């Protein structure tokens, strides 16, 4: 930047602008600090970017929609261009949504763009969360940023649901009806909360306007604030990188922001926007005109919520029959609804607090900037797989009717199966994943110690057949041995000589996590394996690196 100020004397528009900005906002210092910041490169780091860019697309397309959408439930008679609904009573909200679709050029495109971007936003955020989980990127110093990201995921679902409810068509009305039913189940205050949300009895004439306020102001504002915090912390910590030669906890390896990431990430924004636009232009979504205005009496069978609400809807379906009972005062406890809500809340809280739990078990206070390969943290990876299976079972629960009709199965059978899978599935997933990780780790050890199998079979002079193994180069090798290895601990007495419950618990959990472990190959082991190979060579044949 000092160059820029020097050249400013020579004139030129760019130099002049640079000088102007530096003298007013200190642009020079900002560029010096951030211009050559290093970012590591990996495809999985783009998931968060996809989420961020989808959100920008949501802001742009959403703002456009607000220019035409009217969040009012005042009744009107439709006289627009869509024939089948001509003369029908409907709310202004629904009519304006129809008008956006049929009477504004590009309006339908923007509605579809907005909906697709919302689906992608939550999906990308979810995948990003999984990437962070399975690579251990949530470890110190990033625990708080995990919670911030988690809040973003919840806000994204909230934004999605409030938006889904705005067009006031049959689907959005039914979604709200379900929310109303869930709210009414809340002990003591349920009926009041429902009444306050809907401004009286369901469905009332207030809910669309109220959700609109949340949807276009409060939720996006909160998302923006949390994104700002999220990215600010990325700058503070600098991005993590995958393990490999030259990648350490005290450095960051990658490309500079300017120009490489301006090109790559800037270009990627256009790719995400472009793909969403292409999908919006060619694939129809939420054809609200087909379902008609909201009416509490009809319902279309086989309707599905947006994908990210599926797991909540599935939880409601999977609740067993007859869970509702009266207490001694005659008040109703709707455990058929409260239990699924509780399951969702507990799941979400466990996800949010996982980093703190793992940190407590490992007792590892160091900063971690090198990511784990999922196989190198077998128990964590298995826990993640179990969590995903649990989520997937709830999610599949939202489609029991479609599964049953498409595969000609009994509806009750499908539901019971998923109920069982919800409990058993995670346990199986945990076991399989953990064993798979440990096997992969052992395979890595084999490769490090004995080289890679080449598939070439050699017959030795004395008749023995052997496969030729090729040693791998030092850089590849380092990738396989550079990981954090943990050992279980035993409960030790504290300063007062007492073994506390906490110490016992931590010892038990450390066994759960680290009892089965595959340690990375050490220099000694490698030297021994290599000398063994050399002996083999001398004694055996002229084939190289035989095992």
């Amino acid at each position, binding site marked *: 930047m000092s160059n820029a100020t020097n050249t400013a004397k020579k004139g030129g528009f760019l130099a002049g602008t640079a000088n102007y900005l530096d003298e007013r906002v200190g642009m020079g210092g900002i560029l010096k600090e951030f211009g050559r910041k290093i970012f590591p490169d990996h495809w999985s780091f783009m998931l968060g970017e996809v989420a961020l860019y989808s959100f920008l697309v949501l802001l742009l397309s959403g703002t456009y929609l607000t220019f035409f959408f009217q969040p009012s439930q005042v009744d009107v008679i439709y006289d627009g261009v869509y024939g089948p609904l001509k003369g029908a009573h409907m709310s202004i909200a629904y009519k304006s949504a129809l008008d956006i679709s049929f009477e504004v050029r590009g309006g339908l495109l923007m509605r579809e763009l907005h909906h697709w971007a919302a689906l992608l936003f939550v999906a990308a955020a979810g995948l990003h969360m999984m990437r962070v989980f399975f690579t251990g990127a949530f470890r110190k110093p990033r625990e708080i940023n995990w919670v911030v990201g988690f809040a973003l995921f919840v806000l994204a679902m909230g934004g999605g649901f409030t938006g889904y409810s705005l067009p006031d068509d049959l689907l959005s009305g039914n979604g709200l009806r379900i929310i109303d039913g869930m709210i009414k189940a809340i002990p003591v205050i349920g009926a009041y909360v429902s009444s306050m949300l809907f401004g009286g009895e369901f469905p009332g004439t207030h809910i669309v306007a109220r959700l609109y306020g949340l949807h276009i102001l409060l939720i996006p504002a909160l998302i923006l604030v949390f994104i700002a915090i999220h990215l600010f912390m990325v700058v503070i910590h600098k991005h993590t990188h995958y393990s490999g030669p030259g990648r350490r906890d005290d450095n*960051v390896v990658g490309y500079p922001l300017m120009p490489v990431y301006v090109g790559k990430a800037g270009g990627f924004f256009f790719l995400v926007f472009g793909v969403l636009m292409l999908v919006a232009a060619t694939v129809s979504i939420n054809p609200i005109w087909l379902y008609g205005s909201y009416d509490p009496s009809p319902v279309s069978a086989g309707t599905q919520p947006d994908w990210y609400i599926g797991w909540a809807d599935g939880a409601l379906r999977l609740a067993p029959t007859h869970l509702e009972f009266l207490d001694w005062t005659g008040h109703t406890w709707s455990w058929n609804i409260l239990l699924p809500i509780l399951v969702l809340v507990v799941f979400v809280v466990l996800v949010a607090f996982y980093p703190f739990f793992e940190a407590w078990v490992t007792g590892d206070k160091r900063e971690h900037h090198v990511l784990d390969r999922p196989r190198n943290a077998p128990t964590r990876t298995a826990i993640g797989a179990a969590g995903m299976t649990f989520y997937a079972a709830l999610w599949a629960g939202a489609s029991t009717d479609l599964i049953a009709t498409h595969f000609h199965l009994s509806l*009750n059978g499908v539901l019971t199966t998923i109920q069982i899978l919800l409990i058993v599935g995670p346990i199986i997933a945990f076991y399989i994943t953990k064993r798979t990780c440990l096997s992969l780790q052992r395979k890595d050890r084999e490769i490090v110690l004995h080289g890679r199998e080449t598939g070439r079979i050699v017959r030795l002079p004395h008749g023995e057949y052997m496969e030729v193994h090729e040693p791998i180069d030092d850089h590849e090798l380092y990738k396989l041995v550079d990981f954090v290895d943990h050992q279980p601990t035993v409960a030790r007495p504290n300063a007062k000589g007492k073994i506390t419950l906490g110490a016992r618990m931590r010892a038990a959990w450390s066994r759960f996590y680290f009892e089965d472990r595959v340690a990375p190959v050490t*220099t*000694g082991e490698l030297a021994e394996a290599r000398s063994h190979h050399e002996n083999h060579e001398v004694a055996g044949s002229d084939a190289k690196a035989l095992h």
Partner: protein
Amino acid sequence: MASKQESQGGEHEYSAGLAVVSADKIADPGLEPHRVRMTDKSEKHEKRAASQVAGWFLISIAGSISAIVFYFLFPINADLNTVRTNTFFFGVSAALGMLAIGFGAVHWAKTLMPDAEVAEARHQTRGSEEVRARAIEIVNLANQESGFSRRKLIRRSLYGALALFPLPGLVLFKDLTTNNNPSGTLRHTMWARGVRLVTDPLGTPIKAADVTLGSVFHVIPEGLNELPEDQKLEQKAKAAVLLVRLDESEIKSEKEKAWGHQGIVAYSKICTHVGCPVALYEQHTHHLLCPCHQSTFDITDDCKVIFGPASHALPQLQISVDNQGYLVANHDFFEPVGPSFWERSVNE
């Protein structure tokens, strides 16, 4: 875990906990050697990459311009196909305008910008000891100068003030609803003695003789269609009813028989789970199925729940015929319809 002393390098030495810190760890060979790209060694390749990048940007320009052209070329009118044409051509061209910028920029970065990875030092998030000491000093100074710890009265009264100031804001939310007895209004529907059962949505009264065996009627109370529009849906959300005629011998419950009329029975259509309309009637099993969460009710046995997450039976509407042969209600529902709520079973 107590952390150890500051190491000489200025970086804090943290406890590794259960992590194994091995002295025999295989040494880091350092970054892989950089592989030179074709565009770095061959001018021909470099030039070609440069023209490819520019080519993408030109395609983008063409896409954006054609989007504008298509916007005007394909106006939309009452023919809905015009909406499809406009959406498709405008959208695809605009998408091309963006995608091509993306392809161009990424291609530029990957082929022409330096691709040798560089390492930058990363420092611990924790501040140096001097910084931390100064931070503590600042906090102490602020505490001293304001007397925050010392002046208990000020501090405690401030806590009190801060705790109370949001309450007026909370009270403001009271008027989100003007209904002072929400659980009370949930107990009553439009049904009353003598109210005719009429079809949904046309409002035609139903003669008992017209309800043939096995037929299903979606029913609303007479007068619902005449309500002001802003009350209609609220009433319908409670009063919707499903009417079927069963063979009387198939009805298992005596109460159900008595509350019906010659095998014609009327049940609330609002699911007792979370309120979806229980709209699917399976004729040969006499099951009512809620399409939202698959709660299943047996219509021959008081509409008891036989499957799914709902917990109590659909309320039955007591019906008879009036002197003209039309079906009428005898009474409002005897219990609240729809989803459960806290006060549902409490007598008022």
